[in-house]
């Protein structure tokens, strides 16, 4: 007797760059027959309508690709512009950009850990449901999220689609009093960040041992964020401009998002990949806090992503505190830009991982062609691979509900530009 058990996990609203998604899972004879992470949000075709726009508009336009990590889009774009135009924005701008980016990491990671991931591990449907039993944890998370937003606002005026950044630097510099006041709040939040690492490590994270390739930026001195070379755990080490020679995107029939491969293989980007490749660049207090958890990076447990996120919040706080020490308002907040034709490349570490941009400009500084490879697209293949392994490890004979829960948890663990949407997974079982 053959039983066809079709489990269809439907995700009608996956809020992310590439948009809505669903998971098709067909289990037959105890084997995964089909496993497809489908992304079907109508394409917004950003790459096309960037054509003809002037370089100065790019930071504002690309921000609109993603409301969760607009800073990352802005920073990759300005890097591409400045690289081509030969602009050196100088140390003040470099420092403030890192601060700006720290804000985004803190807000995005805090949001993911508390609103999206925690309910999974603690057995709730939503963070609001946790509000009573875990009031302290939630308050702490919201406070950190708020701090991240405050950092972005300091330099960008608002946290979603901030308006402060431009090619060459920033439109304005915040007053020293404001900076000092915010820095004091950051210092005061350090114990919370340390506690968060311990708390994340204490969550009942499922065991998992997988072999995967980690890809991230790497910088000679810093934990990677705004600049560096692209490296991979199996030995790749290339400048940003060579991304396309090693990584390829392909279209699959069931998704509007393109899948990216490294030398034909899926790979991981994001906090765990960064941590696996750059743990040696962490600030000592973060390393110490991690050491106390007993979790060692590089790690082969995908669920250690949540610990990596907590560690990156701590790292970003320390980083911002350091960079804002002795802050002085500069005479100039941006270097002048003189357009040049040619191709510019930019890659930064968005909260969810490597975000790669390439633009061709004409003499007037208008975009002729654009290509943007967001992190979620790069993680898609890895997610399918992980799902396959995770569900098999769980046991395909398990109840649909258990399969669904585990599948959601796995997908959400990648924070695929709002893994929240995977709360939406619905199981439809068809029996012939």
């Amino acid at each position, binding site marked *: 007797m053959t039983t066809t058990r079709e489990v269809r996990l439907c995700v009608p609203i996956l809020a992310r760059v590439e948009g809505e998604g669903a998971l098709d899972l067909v289990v037959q004879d105890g084997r995964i027959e089909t496993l497809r992470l489908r992304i079907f949000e109508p394409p917004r075709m*950003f790459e096309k309508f960037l054509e003809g726009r002037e370089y100065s508009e790019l930071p504002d336009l690309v921000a609109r690709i993603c*409301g969760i990590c607009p800073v990352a889009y802005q920073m990759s774009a300005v890097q591409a512009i400045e690289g081509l135009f030969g602009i050196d924005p100088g140390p003040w701008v470099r420092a403030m950009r890192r601060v700006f980016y720290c804000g985004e990491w803190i807000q995005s990671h805090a949001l993911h850990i508390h609103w999206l991931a925690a309910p999974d591990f603690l057995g709730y449907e939503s963070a609001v449901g946790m509000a009573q039993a875990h009031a302290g944890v939630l308050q702490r998370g919201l406070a950190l999220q708020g701090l991240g937003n405050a950092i972005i606002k300091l330099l960008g005026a608002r946290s*979603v689609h901030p308006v402060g950044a431009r090619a060459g630097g920033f*439109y304005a510099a915040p007053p020293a009093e404001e900076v000092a006041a915010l820095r004091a709040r950051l210092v005061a939040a350090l114990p919370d960040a340390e506690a968060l690492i311990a708390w994340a490590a204490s969550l009942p994270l499922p065991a998992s041992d997988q072999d995967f390739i980690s890809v991230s930026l790497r910088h000679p001195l810093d934990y990677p964020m705004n600049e560096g070379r692209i490296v991979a755990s199996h030995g790749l080490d290339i400048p940003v401009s060579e991304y396309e020679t090693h990584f390829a995107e392909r279209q699959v029939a069931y998704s509007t998002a393109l899948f990216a491969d490294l030398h034909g293989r899926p790979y991981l980007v994001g906090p765990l990949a960064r941590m696996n490749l750059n743990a040696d660049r962490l600030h000592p207090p973060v390393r110490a806090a991690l050491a106390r958890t007993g979790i060692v990076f590089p790690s082969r447990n995908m669920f250690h992503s949540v610990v990596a996120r907590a560690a990156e919040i701590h790292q970003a706080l320390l980083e911002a505190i350091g960079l804002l020490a002795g802050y002085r308002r500069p005479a100039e907040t941006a270097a002048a830009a003189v357009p040049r034709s040619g191709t510019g490349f930019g890659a930064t570490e968005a909260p969810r991982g490597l975000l790669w941009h390439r633009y061709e400009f004409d003499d007037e500084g208008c975009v002729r062609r654009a290509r943007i490879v967001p992190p979620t697209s790069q993680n898609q293949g890895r997610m399918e691979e992980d799902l396959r392994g995770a569900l098999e490890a769980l046991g395909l004979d398990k109840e649909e509900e258990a399969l669904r829960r585990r599948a959601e948890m796995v997908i959400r663990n990648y924070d695929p530009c709002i893994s929240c949407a995977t709360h939406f997974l619905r199981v439809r079982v068809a029996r012939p």
Partner: protein
Amino acid sequence: MDTRLRVAVHKFSSCDGCQLAFLNSGADLLRLMPRVEFVHFAEAGFIAPDAPVDVAFVEGSISTPQDVERIERVRANSRYLVAIGACATAGGLQALRNDADAAAWMAAVYPRPAEIGALPVSSAIASHVPVDEEVWGCPVNEWQLLHVLQARIFGVRPAIENDKVCLECKRRQAVCVLVAQGAPCMGPVTHTGCGALCPRVRRACYACYGPAENPNAQALAARFAQLGLAPAAIARRFLSINNAAPVFHEAGIVWRERHDDHA
């Protein structure tokens, strides 16, 4: 009896930045919870897309045949429908494709464009179903959304100011970037609500909050020309985040044609 306001948050084609305002309002959101019940809000973990609600917030533009059906269901299930953000009120930045050859664009992005189902235009919610309130902005902010929620809790329409950015710019004592720098600021035709963020960081407003009431787009465009902006650059000022808002669209097309005439 549960007297809480039943609320849904729906997403269509968008960047997610508008609904994020709920999650970014942090402790204030929790303080509202005794009076508000999120029935459907995927990002926060509440799933019931077809449940009846008092207020539905709709983010994103309509851009597929499925969207058209889904927004009808949302409308049928909600007593008060609020379109939030530039995508939902004007079709969003992605409405730039409305004036372009969408098929050619698809072909340029996707190797096999036929497999991607999309309408040729990206359009506002109000062009498909009646909308009770539009909250403009790209993105809308926490304050705006909480205000709408509060008003609905009190059973009244929200009080949405519709002045221009300029007035708020002056209230905040920012120095006018148009007058003092000659920057092509869109503030004089743009809907208030952001807090005049751009002029306050010494840059020209780029109209992310859409057209204000009684805007004189042509007079402002003429002023930009005096400031030395080329027709194509003027056209781009209008054909940006809210390109499909009729006033902006019209002004943008006029200046784009002027550019084409020169070219």
